[in-house]
């Protein structure tokens, strides 16, 4: 995280600490839940952003992850299933001075609220969307979710799920999102870095966070969360750098026609034709290609897929209001009189 970039953020109140963002409510997630780590990361990150805490609003839908606002000592709104993006849109556009964070899950955000998510992203509503993906319904006690793998046996799919899963990153890119990233709950420094970048992005920032549900889907992300294996299973995306991964940093990704392939090379001597990551690319094609890299043939990309600039919805809305104010004098009586009226004496 670079300090000079943080300095561009609005507000510079008194120095806050993590404790300022901890509410007095008991956290009621299961012991060992990945949500704890994400909560702690956010509570640690926010004081460093220099924004008064009364200007934060945390909005959520329904599900385990959506209890998040209760544990943040900021303004918060625990809304209804899937609808958090709709409230967040009203909040941000009605009050552009507020910093709006949204917490959702794979069921809340991609199933019942899928429609709202894609529209918030295409409008570039200036909200930070944390999608906790645990590939299962937790709060309703273990049913298949839109990201559950095909064939998965759950309470609602005892013979295996027959619903093909969604890829949240691909969906966000297809929805014209301007900031799309992925991180995992167990890699706190990296999660902090990604969330910091998201906080600085103006417009919708979508972050898929692999989050372990210890009760109903334990180990779903073991390959990428296990410190001993993860460097061979993930590729960290760095803007302007070649896609190199592996414990030995001896593997890379390059294109063969329109398809990616893994190449192994002698450490320190990468081939010249490795793919170079460009999160600022005008076209989302590269980001989309990266979003399709999946285990086991490929390492799973972590980090920022896309970070481009486009006016946020509230900016366009304010701009239209300002334009209108330039050409129209506010005169309620004149407005009520209308263009055509007559006087009865």
């Amino acid at each position: 995280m670079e300090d000079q970039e943080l300095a561009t953020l609005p507000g510079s109140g008194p120095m806050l600490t993590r404790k300022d963002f901890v509410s007095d409510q008991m956290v009621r997630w299961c012991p060992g839940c990945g949500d704890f780590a994400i909560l702690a990361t956010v509570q640690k990150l926010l004081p460093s952003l220099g924004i008064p805490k009364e200007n934060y609003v945390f909005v959520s839908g329904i599900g385990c992850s959506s209890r998040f606002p209760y544990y943040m000592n900021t303004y918060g709104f625990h809304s209804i299933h899937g609808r958090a993006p709709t409230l967040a849109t009203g909040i941000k556009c009605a009050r552009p001075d507020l910093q709006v964070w949204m917490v959702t899950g794979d069921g809340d955000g991609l199933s019942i609220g899928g429609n709202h998510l894609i529209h918030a992203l295409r409008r570039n509503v200036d909200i930070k969307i944390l999608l906790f993906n645990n590939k299962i319904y937790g709060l309703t006690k273990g049913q298949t979710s839109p990201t559950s793998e095909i064939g998965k046996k759950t309470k609602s799919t005892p013979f295996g799920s027959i619903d093909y899963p969604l890829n949240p990153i691909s969906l966000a890119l297809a929805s014209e999102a301007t900031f799309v990233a992925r991180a995992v709950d167990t890699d706190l420094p990296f999660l902090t870095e990604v969330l910091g970048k998201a906080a600085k992005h103006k417009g919708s920032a979508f972050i898929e966070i692999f989050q372990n549900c210890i009760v109903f889907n334990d180990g779903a992300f073991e390959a990428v969360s296990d410190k001993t294996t993860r460097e061979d299973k993930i590729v960290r995306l760095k803007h302007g750098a070649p896609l190199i991964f592996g414990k030995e940093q001896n593997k890379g990704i390059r294109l063969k026609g329109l398809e990616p392939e893994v190449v192994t090379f002698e450490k320190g001597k990468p081939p010249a034709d490795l793919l170079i990551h460009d999160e600022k690319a005008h076209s989302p094609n590269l980001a989309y290609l990266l979003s399709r890299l999946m285990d086991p043939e490929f390492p799973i990309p972590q980090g920022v897929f896309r970070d481009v600039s486009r006016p946020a919805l509230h900016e366009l809305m304010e701009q239209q209001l300002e334009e209108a104010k330039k050409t129209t004098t506010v005169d309620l009586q004149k407005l009520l009189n209308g263009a055509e009226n007559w006087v009865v004496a």
Partner: protein
Amino acid sequence: MSQTETIKPARKDPEELDAVTIRFAGDSGDGIQLTGMQFTTSTAIAGNDLSTLPDYPAEIRAPVGTLPGVSGYQIHFSSREVLTPGDAPDVLVAMNPAALKANIKDLKKGGILIVNSDAFSQGNLTKVAYAANPLEDGSLSDFRVIPVELTRLTGNAMTGMTMTKVQIDRCKNFFALGMMYWLYDRPMENTLKWIQAKFKKNPLMAEANTKALHAGNAYAETAEIFGHHHYRVKKAPIVPGRYRNITGNEATALGMVAAAQLSGIELWYGSYPITPASDVLHELSKHKAYGVKTFQAEDEIAAIGSAIGASFVGKLGCTGTSGPGVALKSEAIGLAVMVELPLVILNVQRGGPSTGLPTKTEQSDLLQAMYGRNGECPVAVFAPATPGECFTMVIEAFRIAVKYMTPVFFLTDGYLGNGSEPWMVPDVAKLPKFSQPALMTKEAFKPYQRDAETLARPWAIPGLAGYEHRVGGIEKADITGNVSYDPDNHERMVRLRAAKVAKISQEIPPTEILGAKKGKVLVVGWGGTYGSITAAVKNCQARGESVSSIHIRHLNPFPSDLAEIFANFENILVPELNMGQLFKMLRAKYLIPAVGLNKIKGQPFKIAEIENAIAGLLQGGRN
């Protein structure tokens, strides 16, 4: 006195009439609504009282010349008070056989029927299953038929201009309008001005429509089609002031803008396009200079979600829709009840259930507004009586929403929303101002600590340091607002939310009774049936009958004086455009032996229908 009874031999001076009802009908592409609205404005400027009823199909361009494609616009104008768009037209202008077939059953016997005879081709007759041409087979002998070769004559008026057949055809409604202006002695200046403004960028169509209007006017006078006979309806005795025509939807939108100005709190309107409520979104979208933010959401749920979000951060959150949209918003309305935020939900009711009759009126969403949610979920419900009253009542809805921190349903309907009437423009200086209630100190702040008078919780908006708090749909602990599953607390909160809405009755003025306070029949109405009920009751009273009426504008809570009023009448009649929804509520609450008068045709009540029901009760027909 209807005009048809007073037709006398031809003479040059206009004959005076008390009241006239005209219906324009044609293909939905014929510009019928436009023609009607132009005639309306000119009539208002001529000083008559009036009321209108547009009646258009759900399809944008149903197949040309077919019955589903018929669009109608009725206007009733008079030298006396006008309360309804008229029971039956005195004059029918039918642009084609379909328009004739769909409307002729309503025309008064002896009424004037003006038809575009050019449209009565074999093809058009076949489309609507006329075996023979009704203009020739004597089936219209009950009426004064005036066939006009509208298409040909409009074409003649364009001689020398380079116009396509389609363009010429588009002007024939103005030819017909010109004729009607002569027949009823209306000024044309307003329409001439309108044409110039409308076709600013298309001088050819401006000239063509101007010529068509003049040609129709001259034709009516010189071709003696009405035998030099024309009519004048004198100015009505109207309260002095500045007037304009206004539809209920316009009045609702302007009321919302006014509420924001009067409170100094900006308006957020989240909506999803739906007939017949979309016009409110259209109107509000124009008023950005007034700080109005409109948001066309991806669906009905997002529309209300955005409004709840805006309310949470201190704005006047509002969402507008019609019945099917309310069904989708129900869960979110429950959330607004739980988090106790101000919110106005506009429902411009239409025929239901399901998609129902999108362009027709009905009052069948009252019980949906009252009870259509999970859990014990009380909201205030207000309903204006006239198009113009939508303005003042929606301001009141916002005032109450803010003062009591509650969602308020605002129920209008297609008839009020699309119908228009001359509206005395209020003096802005005299409109009621309101503001957000004072907030306790941050030391004393508890999110669910209630005001003693209103039971409202504090509206502490994000950005205020020291007031950070969380709200949500899970049951709240009394006072602290923390999550609580405690059984006693839940019962207390359910009762508190109900008590808060009930407290709104202290805001309701005494119910006005039209007529004596005691008598044989009391007619109880709500919403857009006001005009028909009032006209019917006034007719009864003029005959010396013991009939009074009240109109309930606050459906939840009810005014506190209703029981007292009901006790003084032998019979209570509740006319509604539904199966008896207010009727059920009144019977449940007051245990009164009321009787319902119910109509579910997508059309408003005729005055005669209500008079007949009253007569039945007066003659002891009920028992």
